[in-house]
């Protein structure tokens, strides 16, 4: 009887042991780590590739710092920065962010406390002067200048020849001469001279910077549209192209690229960052060359301008010291990195000590043996520094509409006066 009881008890205990539930373990939360540097940038072929190179170099020396590179569309970055910064929290924002120079001031002025002062992290004098004004604010250097937006006139030498021109004829010309050449080219080849997106006035910006003018006054805030001689000439040149019927319109980047890759246009006046896209059509090798950008025929105008270009900014936060150190030791002072960037990506930096290197002197067979990097570097030094101010794109939106009015026959003075009035009303 006792044995039976023991058996019963034993089986009961055994069953009880079996039914014990297994406990779940809690998940660990992610902690903000001052040694983790997150970077946001766009364009995998250009900016992201450059970052990866810098990361590789930096991590060799500093293995304890973790660098995370996140690719985001530029519009997304702008939107997220605006959202994050306006809510006053650095949570969810990266340590380093790439910002286009045109937009830089609007961020720096709106959220000066959010950005890390980089004055001590690199030597400002090592960089092209024209990059300093957009990247600094109130005497402090916030941005570390990155790529150059230095422009050139990419031309099809074969079409030029058909129209009876050589590359020599394009040196030091102004936009009116450019239009004349365009007419000839169209006459001779049936090809349009230029492709334009009516919704993007990049060409106007490029034109007015040759004259050292901008949409705004030096203070970066006051619209300077009415009576802006450079702007007036730029508009006239733009309309001149239309009237000359040498423009092939496009509606976006892909059509833009397609238009010159397909051989439908004879020239592309734009920033040097277009080089990889031009070279993408390998069948056109040897048919391209790069001339200096045409200038406006106003006093002080030069055959050099800038379009686009961006710079690195460090946001204040736990890892801002590590982020500043990363930028200072890579893009801020490493000439080898810039050599490598040129060689592997074709990216031209604005770091002056690197501009004399071997890579800069290399001839490019695609461009008929032209040393285009060297040429761009030379033009870079000529670019007139500008304060792009806070409202470049806001004003441009007004200009796009007014440009249509102008094309429809409105007088140029009315156009600019109206634009001035709208801009003042809107930006007040």
């Amino acid at each position, binding site marked *: *009887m006792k044995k039976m009881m023991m058996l019963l008890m034993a089986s009961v205990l055994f069953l009880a042991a079996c039914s014990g539930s297994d406990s779940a373990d809690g998940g660990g939360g992610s902690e903000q780590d001052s040694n983790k540097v997150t970077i946001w940038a766009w364009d995998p072929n250009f900016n992201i590739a450059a970052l990866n190179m810098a990361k590789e170099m930096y991590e060799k020396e500093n293995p304890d710092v973790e660098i995370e590179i996140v690719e985001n569309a530029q519009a997304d970055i702008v939107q997220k920065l605006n959202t994050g910064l306006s809510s006053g929290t650095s949570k969810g924002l990266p340590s380093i962010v790439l910002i286009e120079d045109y937009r830089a001031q609007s961020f720096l002025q709106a959220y000066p406390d959010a950005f890390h002062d980089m004055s001590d992290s690199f030597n400002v004098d090592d960089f092209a002067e024209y990059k300093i004004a957009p990247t600094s604010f109130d005497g402090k250097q916030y941005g570390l200048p990155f790529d150059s937006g230095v422009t050139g006139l990419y031309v099809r030498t074969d079409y030029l020849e058909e129209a009876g021109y050589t590359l020599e004829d394009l040196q030091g010309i102004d936009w009116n001469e450019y239009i004349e050449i365009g007419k000839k080219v169209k006459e001779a080849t049936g090809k349009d001279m230029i492709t334009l997106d*009516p919704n993007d006035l990049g060409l106007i910006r490029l034109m007015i910077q040759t004259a050292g003018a901008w949409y705004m006054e030096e203070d970066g805030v006051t619209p300077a549209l009415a009576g802006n001689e450079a702007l007036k000439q730029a508009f006239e040149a733009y309309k001149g192209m239309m009237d*000359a019927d040498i423009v092939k319109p496009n*509606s*976006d980047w*892909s059509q833009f690229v397609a238009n010159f890759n397909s051989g439908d246009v004879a020239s592309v006046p734009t920033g040097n960052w277009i080089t990889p896209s031009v070279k993408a059509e390998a069948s056109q090798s040897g048919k391209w060359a790069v001339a200096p950008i045409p200038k406006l025929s106003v006093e002080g105008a030069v055959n050099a301008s800038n379009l686009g270009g961006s710079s690195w900014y460090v946001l204040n936060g736990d890892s801002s010291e590590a982020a500043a150190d990363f930028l200072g030791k890579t893009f801020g002072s490493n000439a080898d990195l810039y050599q490598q960037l040129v060689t592997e990506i074709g990216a031209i930096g604005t770091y002056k000590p690197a501009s004399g290197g071997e890579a800069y002197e290399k001839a490019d067979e695609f461009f008929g043996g032209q040393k285009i990097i060297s040429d761009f570097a030379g033009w870079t030094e000529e670019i007139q520094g500008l304060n792009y101010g806070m409202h470049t794109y806001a004003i441009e939106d007004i200009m796009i509409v007014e440009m249509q009015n102008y094309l429809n026959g409105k007088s140029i003075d009315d156009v600019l006066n109206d634009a001035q009035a709208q801009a003042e009303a809107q930006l007040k």
Partner: protein
Amino acid sequence: MGRMIEKFNDHGLFIKMFLVMVVSIIAVSVTITYSTIRMSERLFMDTFSITNTKVIHQVKSNFETFSNSVATAANEVQQSGTIKNYLSQGDTTSLEMAKLYYNTHVQMDRAHLNVDDYELSMMVTGVNGRSFSTDRANWVADEEQIAALDLTKNTLEEPRKLLYQLDTENGAPMIVVTKALIERTTDSIYGAFYLSIRESEFKRFYSSFTSEGNDLLIMKADGSVLSSNRADMIGDAAPELLNEAAEIEEEGIDFREIEWQDTRQIMLAEHLPALDMYVVNLIDQEVVMDNLINTKTVVASSFLIVLAAVSIVFLISRRMTKSLSQLVREISALSKNNFDQYVTATGSFETKQLAYAFNDMLDELHNYVEELIQTQKKQRNAELAALQRQINPHFLYNTLTSVKIMVQQGNKEKAADTVNALISLLQNAVGNVHETMTVQAEIDNLKSYVFINQVRYGERIQVSYFIAPDCEELHVPKLIIQPFIENAFFHAFNQKTDGFIHIIIFKEENTLVCEIIDNGDGMQIDSRHALPDSRRNRQLFSGIGVRNVHERIKLLYGSEFGVHISSNPGEGTHIRITLPIISSNNNPKI
């Protein structure tokens, strides 16, 4: 084996009781546990279905908002003359084209405003090879590639319909809403409209409502899955689900339980009439239950309760049955002990009461039995006494005849003595009311009897008396010795003609011993008839025999007293009567 059975019998009550209790406890708790789980499942399923019905309505309304926006955007594009020109005209002057491009951009932006809330891109392609996209990065950028897609072909086949199609071939799954752009007057197609949204983006309409085991699917009318939080199902065909969904819609029920992919699922469905699609919600019962009802805990806790209950039942029933079975054991052993051993009263109140009652009953029984024995003894005694007192009429007749002869012979002296002896004998037998008499009186009585016998049969048998002096005043039952003298007279001397009879009375320890010794014929002691019967007509008393004496003594004084006879043929007989020492007449026993 036998021992085990015996043990089982011993603990039978306990085992039966305990087993019944254990079985009932387990049965009850299993039933309760099971029904608790079932009930909570049911309750949970009901509430879940109600919430999910609301959720699915919400999802439906999200979709309707979305599809309305999409339809509006598509309509605006369709109605825009600028866009029609953009897509159908050939190249003109730069100025005109620039205006057209610009205006197209403006129109597309305006149409896009309708769907600004969603992350998507709109694209149009035209018969003239032109295209416009609000964001080429979002989807396929190449016009030729788009033209080659199946979804373009589908669009051209059904030009009037807004088609929701899934594109899984170009990277991440994309949901593309397409429509052919038609010139209304001529009914000719001049382009196509594409609105592309990443499936992952599309999912956001409902993904916040989903969880593991709670899946949502958007099914097209052809049975294919357009979008689902389960990535593995996107693009799959599931016609059986579509049938179920159609039935749910038709019957107007909220939900139905189905077997799908070998699991039990609750299915909810809602028709989107504008799109001819179904929003299907599948709830995997097992997964959801596992997350919400911790069956293990419920079972474990009821198991612990069962364990505790069984232990308590074990202890209590053991205590109760232990005393009870002890009682039973003692009672069954009682018969071996002549009912004079009480049972021990232990254990619970009931058992104690039972034991007390049993002991009381035992007492009663004892009293009753004793009383009965006493009554029977008295009755027997009375019978025997009555028998003793019956004087044999033959004896009287013979004696009187002897006296008459003595008188006729003139032997007056002897006749007077004989009559005196007879008188004394009768006086003692009839007149004395006491049960006992002194040894002295008994001897006197005997002497009278012997005298009469000697008168009648001569003096060839000598009788001698040896009475210890301290015994003379002791009492003996009446007529105890007389039957043996009578016996000796009439049976012991049939062959021998003369002899003697000795009567010896003495004390031996605490007994009074009377010995009647003769030297007559003796006899063979038969084991059956230890004491011979009397021959009637020569005896003094008709009813009394030697055996009666023995019986009577035992009746009166107990079995240690009685008559013992030893005899050998030819050597005589030795009778020994043992009696208690009774010093006075007032013996309580009689």
